[in-house]
């Protein structure tokens, strides 16, 4: 069983930047964040571009960004690979403040080979409890997407289209997340 290191959100925020980047904090427990591999980052980029293009086409523009930290609760600091803030949240966003207080509307995680099942699951629950409407988990090897909501989860594989109520009109084949 892995050892569990703990600290408060305030202690976490005071970590030197480089050290803080190696961890996320979930209810006071430190979760190791592996250094992203090229294949991980290529998917992150594909997803970000797809959503960014969609958001740019809208009249009220939301925001899609990478690796920004959220203070979901006093002792949780999570940094989704990609997150979406819808126009209402963007309007209230302090662009110069990190971590962002609260939760993103959509959090997207590209699962790394070393990520632990339990931690991935608990992160999904933390986002949903913190107010995130949807969490997407992208599995590189299986080329699959799991879309979590509070009560339901949907699964996408192969060339199935990716759609969500959060982004009306967004419609891309799942394969567009795996261009490499």
């Amino acid at each position, binding site marked *: *069983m*892995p050892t569990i290191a703990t600290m408060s959100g305030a202690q976490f925020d005071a970590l030197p930047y480089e050290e803080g980047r190696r961890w996320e904090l979930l209810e006071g427990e430190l979760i190791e964040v592996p250094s992203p591999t090229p294949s991980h980052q290529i998917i992150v980029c594909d997803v970000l571009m797809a959503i960014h293009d969609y958001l740019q086409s809208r009249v009220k523009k939301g925001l899609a960004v990478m690796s920004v930290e959220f203070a979901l609760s006093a002792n949780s600091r999570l940094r989704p690979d990609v997150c979406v803030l819808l126009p209402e949240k963007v309007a209230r966003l302090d662009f110069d403040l990190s971590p962002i207080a609260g939760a993103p509307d959509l959090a997207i995680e590209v*699962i*790394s*080979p*070393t*990520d*632990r*099942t*339990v*931690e*991935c*699951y*608990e992160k999904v*629950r933390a986002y949903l409890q913190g107010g995130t409407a949807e969490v997407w*988990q992208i*599995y*590189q*090897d*299986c080329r*699959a997407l*799991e879309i*979590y909501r509070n*009560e*339901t*989860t*949907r*699964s996408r*594989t192969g060339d199935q289209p990716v759609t969500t109520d959060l982004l009306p009109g967004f419609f891309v084949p799942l394969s567009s997340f795996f261009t490499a």
Partner: protein
Amino acid sequence: MLLDVEFALSEDVRLRPDVCLLLPEKARQLDRKRIPIPGAPDLAIEVISPSERSSESYRKVLSYLKHGVAEVWQIYPESLALEIHKSETRRSLTGDQQVTTDLLPGFSPPLSLFFES
């Protein structure tokens, strides 16, 4: 119901669910002296251990479903949660929700029963 028995889901897939269920039809056809069991169980249950990697747990779920398992249950002991995976849908159960499945008509214990100790 079997504990920790190996299945040959395909030529090059061998999985050993923590708990599995063979419904009467499959149970009848079972050769009790042969291991691994060829084919798939009807229900596969995995209790997630702290060291497991997400990519592997997920691959197992997809592999079970692809090879004919009707439902895969993932039990998260620390979160006291159950994820029920079917090929098209997923369900998340937590707290005291009732565990039900088409596979076991009439079965409806509260989830907390799985975590009594």
